[in-house]
């Protein structure tokens, strides 16, 4: 298995996709290769870190502005909107 084949198999392996023949070979290799195991762990941790990272909440002021802007555009295009609660 070449390094390139290993790297190509890495993605599918990390995503837990149906193991192709290459992926099976990769899994076998992984069982005895510490550096490759750590790379797989690192990639999973990287994804996890971004999923756990900065949530970027929508600023409240902008939410109001967006709502109003869309209401105005809707009324211009389609007519009156129901009264706001």
């Amino acid at each position, binding site marked *: 298995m070449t390094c390139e084949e290993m790297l190509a198999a890495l993605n599918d392996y990390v995503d837990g996709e149906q193991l192709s023949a290459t992926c099976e070979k990769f899994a076998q290799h992984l069982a005895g290769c510490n550096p490759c195991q750590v790379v797989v762990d690192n990639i999973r941790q990287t994804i996890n870190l*971004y999923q756990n990272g900065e949530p970027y909440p929508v600023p409240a002021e*902008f939410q109001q502005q967006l709502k109003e802007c869309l209401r105005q555009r809707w009324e211009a295009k389609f007519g009156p909107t129901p009264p706001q609660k």
Partner: protein
Amino acid sequence: MEIAASQKFEIVERSDEQLQQQAASGDFVAFQELISRFQSRVFRVARRIVGNQHDAEDVTQLTFLSVMDHLDDFRKESGVATWILRIATNHALKVLRKRRGLPTVSLDAPVGDAEDSYATLPHPEFIAQWRDEPSRLAQQREVRQLIETALEELPEKYRVVFVLRDVEGLSVKETAEALGLSESNVKVRLLRARLDLRERLTRALGDEATRMFPSHDHDG
């Protein structure tokens, strides 16, 4: 007092597709619900692609204006989420290109160059276990800064794929649909993004004492 079964109200949340259809037939309340359902996601994707709040707000507003303008054009080949995220991504990429003074071209324009094949993939160099769990690292301000900087420095065609697939959880197929790319192209860009980010983050977060070196012998 117990309510008879026949008197119970069943509150069924409308699906994204139902909201889109109702909005397309002129229901403003359905449209508003669609916005409130997707505004956080659109803003987050925009923020991560364009890198600042002001542009992310513009992208979010433009996205929902486009959604309103094209309610009748939605085709059911993809889900509503994929459709909206595709619109958001296109607006975000226009902002980046405008910022760089480049003409607006579609994201799939560079398909086929050497960087979209497996032939020249960067190999992992710094290999070490991380010093802590991602969930705990994510609480640290300097780590949050580090991951955002690493993402911003990633070439945009890899960044966009990583954000949609790995951060937002779209499937490879949905990411391909959202970006107008082939699935194989998405996979190779995703791998480049993952390898690049892994390398940068492991250099910063890896425990030097556990560092190991690849042998490039993969026959075992």
